[in-house]
């Protein structure tokens, strides 16, 4: 059973400097398999995700990286015929335990998608929605504070402070994505999953999101799926390479991009036929 109340993460200005191998493990997967009906999409994936660092999943289309990401906050539950085997723990607690409240899990493990998907509501309402349904704000003033803090953390507040009650869908693509990040942050998650968060954005909007990811890792454990190896190299401290449903190699981002140990990884990241 996950700990009772959702709480705001402790705030820090700087990312921890402890070597990755010595960080606490936030999410741990062991021998995870996924079947969509008869088709097996993931084969025995085991990986530890370190606390307050950015971990990126890379690999060709259909390699299982998004499937695995979606296992972490049980987004695959909604897909008919999808079966998940093995175990995934968040702070040592089994994510697939029948006693677990999935809604609470998704507050602790927030998610940002490929295409910015703000609710068709005002900017304010987009961010306030989660805290409201999770009962995180005792008063209107509390809620206002959560909205402003979350928008600030997502680096969006200065750009939208005069139009908080205008529709979120009226923002630019990059702003909408930051609004979605603010919405995820508002419920005080520990882990933020990002599924190709920049693939619909131009290079400048992408740089702004990458800068934001770098700031957020001081307080959150971030897992990002990306098609762009350069992006993985830029933003993450740990990288995992998936191929044909298997986790081929994982390690420090620096090592993966300068000296991977497996031939498949080398072939993929250098643009050779795998």
């Amino acid at each position, binding site marked *: 059973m996950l700990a009772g109340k959702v709480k705001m993460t402790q705030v820090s200005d700087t990312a921890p*400097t*402890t*070597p*990755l*191998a010595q960080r606490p493990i936030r999410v741990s997967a062991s021998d995870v398999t996924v079947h969509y009906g008869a088709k097996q999409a993931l084969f025995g994936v085991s990986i530890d995700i370190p606390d307050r*660092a950015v971990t990126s999943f890379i690999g060709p289309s259909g390699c299982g990286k998004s499937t695995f990401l979606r296992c972490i906050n049980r987004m695959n539950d909604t897909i008919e015929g999808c079966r998940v085997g093995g175990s995934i723990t968040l702070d040592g607690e089994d994510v697939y335990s029948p006693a677990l409240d999935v809604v609470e899990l998704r507050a602790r493990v927030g998610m940002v998608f490929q295409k910015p998907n703000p609710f068709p509501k005002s900017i304010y309402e987009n961010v306030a929605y989660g805290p409201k349904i999770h009962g995180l704000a005792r008063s209107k003033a509390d809620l206002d504070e959560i909205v402003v803090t979350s928008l600030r953390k997502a680096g969006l507040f200065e750009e939208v402070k005069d139009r908080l009650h205008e529709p979120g869908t009226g923002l630019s693509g990059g702003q909408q994505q930051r609004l979605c990040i603010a919405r995820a942050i508002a419920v005080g998650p520990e882990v933020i999953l990002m599924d190709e968060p920049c693939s619909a954005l131009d290079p400048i909007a992408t740089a702004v999101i990458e800068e934001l990811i770098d700031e957020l890792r001081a307080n959150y454990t971030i897992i990002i799926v990306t098609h762009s*190896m*350069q992006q993985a*190299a830029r933003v993450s*401290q740990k990288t995992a390479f998936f191929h044909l449903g298997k986790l081929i190699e994982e390690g*420090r981002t620096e*090592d993966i*991009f*300068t*000296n*991977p*140990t*497996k*031939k498949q*990884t*080398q*072939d993929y*990241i*250098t*643009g*050779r*036929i795998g």
Partner: protein
Amino acid sequence: MSPSALNEHIVTSYEDELTLLARLISEMGGMVELAITDATTALLKLNHELATQVRAADKKIDEMQHRIDDLAVSVIARRQPMAADLRMVITAMQVASDLERTGDMAKQLCKRAVQIESLSLAPKFYNGVKHMTDLVARQLKAALDAYATRDAAAAIDVCKRDDEVDAMHTSLFRELLTYMMEDPRNITQCTHMLFCTKSLERVGDHATNIAEAAFYLETGRHLNAHGEDVPAEDEE
């Protein structure tokens, strides 16, 4: 992951650029090997014509370095090379720089060759210089071969053999001191020769640098000062 057993790139023009880079390094290596042996011949035979030729050829070596650097910078800017490719591009720039410096050493030998009036020391000394040149030329060739074939074991051998070059340099240095003490009229020639043997010793150091680059290219790891493989430390 060792780059020696890699497939070809999906993008042919990228593959072609990396092949060209490797070819330019081999070509430049050949030019520098010749410069060193020619420079010593010019020195030991006081052949001014050959000395002039070597000094003229050095301009071509410098141009080659610029060509390699420009190509490497262009590959980095346009292709964003990763892993073994990135190491290849970075080491190409390092090796080109070491080769250019080696070319300068050849030029130094030639500069001395035209300043020395006669070879009046014991023949044993000149044989020693010839022997040292053969040794550094072999070291340079072995280092370039290790780089071209990405042979980590051969690269380690080159690094370990640098002690022989250093020992030979020390021995020639002592010999020169003896000649100077014997007869002050030897001082001018001996001083020139001191600089020449020092230049040859430096060629050995550049060969070692190239071998270290070859080892890094193949393994992604660095050799320490004793030519030994050093395991990486874990840090963020």
